[in-house]
């Protein structure tokens, strides 16, 4: 059963030069226990799209201008703010890229983990603390009883991320939004944190949205993947299929740009050009100015996700011609 269904979500930022559409008719969904990877470059709109699920947009200028976010059958975009607050940290948890700055520097780690329990579940301070220590143990903090009294600055980056995860899953949410949870961590810690997330998924049936720009992370963790570019979804597929046979030149370019994709001693592949300005996006397919396969109809044609198979859709207009199996 789908736990989350995002349909045609659009988000705009008000700027002096008029509205800037950071997320354009984005649709994705995920089922219980599923890990969905959202991949894209910085500025592709993946973070904004995911924060819209919790209606936590940065600043007053950002506005959700269309679409639906169905969570457990309810449209979150229609929900009153108090019900929304109950969901945040209750049914839906969120963890962030930089655990050093996302923890309150003046509050002990134990209290930060205990706070959602007191707030959402009405636990007493001592019960919440007991459970917080348990949670810290669960996420792999050594000596959790003592470390519950530590301040974030006394923790290493990996431990801080573990603490943040403990706080986010304290109230046993059904959905966890992980916004580049491992980007600020070194590679060995990265693997540990991803393993921890998968363990939590296995134990509780938690659905996870994993925002990342690292295809290696996707390969290691996700069930399904959505690739975003300039505010739109370019391709959506089961992970294995996407990695085996991408159906969008952008995805292919991303995969070829990985350091491991180039042979030893060979120059790294790059996608020429830059993200288009969101205030003035190119017509047709937004990727066409950088696409090696671009033709006249790519500049004007109406673009929509087209299903190539049950588990694979692409927004490339020419995928049949250019992405055919070699």
């Amino acid at each position, binding site marked *: 059963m789908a736990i989350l269904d995002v349909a045609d979500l659009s988000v705009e930022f008000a700027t002096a030069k008029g509205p800037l559409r950071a997320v354009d008719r984005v649709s994705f969904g995920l089922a219980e226990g599923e890990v969905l990877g959202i991949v894209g470059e910085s500025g592709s709109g993946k973070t904004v799209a995911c924060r819209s699920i*919790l209606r*936590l947009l*940065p*600043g*007053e200028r950002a506005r959700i201008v269309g679409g639906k976010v169905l969570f457990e059958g309810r449209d979150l975009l229609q929900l009153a703010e108090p019900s*929304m*607050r*109950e*969901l*945040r*940290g*209750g049914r839906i*948890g*969120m963890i*962030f890229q*930089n655990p050093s*700055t*996302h*923890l*309150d*520097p*003046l*509050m*002990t780690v134990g209290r930060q983990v205990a*706070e*959602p329990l007191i*707030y*959402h579940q009405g636990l007493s301070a001592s019960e919440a603390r007991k459970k917080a220590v348990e949670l810290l143990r669960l996420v792999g903090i050594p000596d959790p009883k*003592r470390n519950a*009294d*530590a*301040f974030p600055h*006394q923790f290493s980056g990996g431990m801080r991320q573990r603490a*943040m995860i403990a*706080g*986010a899953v304290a109230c046993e949410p059904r959905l966890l939004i992980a916004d580049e949870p491992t980007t600020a961590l070194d590679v060995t810690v990265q693997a540990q944190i991803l393993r921890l997330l998968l363990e939590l998924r296995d134990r509780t049936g938690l659905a996870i949205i994993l925002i990342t720009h690292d295809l290696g992370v996707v390969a290691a963790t996700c069930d399904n993947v959505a690739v975003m570019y300039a505010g739109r979804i370019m391709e959506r597929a089961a992970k294995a299929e996407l990695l085996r046979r991408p159906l969008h030149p952008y995805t292919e370019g991303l995969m070829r740009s990985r350091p491991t994709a180039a042979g030893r001693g060979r120059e790294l592949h790059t996608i020429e050009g830059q993200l288009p300005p969101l205030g003035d996006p190119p017509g047709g397919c937004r990727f066409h100015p950088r696409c090696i396969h671009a033709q006249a109809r790519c500049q004007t044609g109406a673009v929509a996700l087209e299903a190539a198979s049950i588990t694979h859709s692409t927004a490339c207009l020419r995928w049949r011609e250019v992405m055919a199996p070699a």
Partner: protein
Amino acid sequence: MSASGIALRRRLGALSPLIYVGGGICLFWAVLALAAPWIAPYDPIAQDLAATLQPPNAAHLLGTDNFGRDVLSRIVWGTRLDLQMGVLGVLFPFIIGTTIGALSGYFGGFVDMLLMRLLDVTISFPFFVLIIAIVATLGPGLIRVYIALALVGWVSYARLIRSRFIVLKHADFVMAARSLGYRHLRIIFHHILPNAIMPAVVFCVSDAVIDIVLGSSLSYLGLGIQPPTAEWGLMIAESQTFIGTAWWIATFPGLAIVLLAVGFSLLADGIAEQLGIRD
């Protein structure tokens, strides 16, 4: 010592000597205020017309005034009032200003605009003039002085806290707190305020100096504490006529004001230095 106690110690490092000296002076006055009945050799308002205007001597260490009241005893008892003015004088502006600054900075928009215009109006008057005007309107008395201070003094705190809130409301940990579904008020007072309040705390220690001097000045002008109560500013006011003939009546209360003010100032500087806060 608990784990967090050790952590706090490590975070603060060795305490600045300014804190020891300033804190020591403040502690000295606090003890004097608390123990006034046992320390003061005489009743502060008891007149002894047989022993008026005596210079410092063995019976009256700091001399007597024109009514034969013991200057030392009056200074010791006066500590209670002057210290109270320092503490209560900043307490109400601190609470009001912090709350207004926090709400204004966090919510922004119309609320901010309204509160900041109110602030602009308040600071457009000279501080002392406005205080004197309010006290003169309300009538003399210590409570009225506190009311006037609360009405005028909040602006500095509001500005300090507001500017910190404007920065901190976009901080990552505030976003994280919002993602956990906390109410605005909880985020404001539980998460942002502890991170924003230190400059205001430092300011409030140095503000206490101004309030002590202000309280004494108002008493001097006859708008604050009324005779025959022992208060330093009032003592100086009453001794004016004798300043040429009996220097001790005005000098010692004056020195007391200076020493208390220096104590608070050093303490404020020490805390600021400790926390790495400038200005």
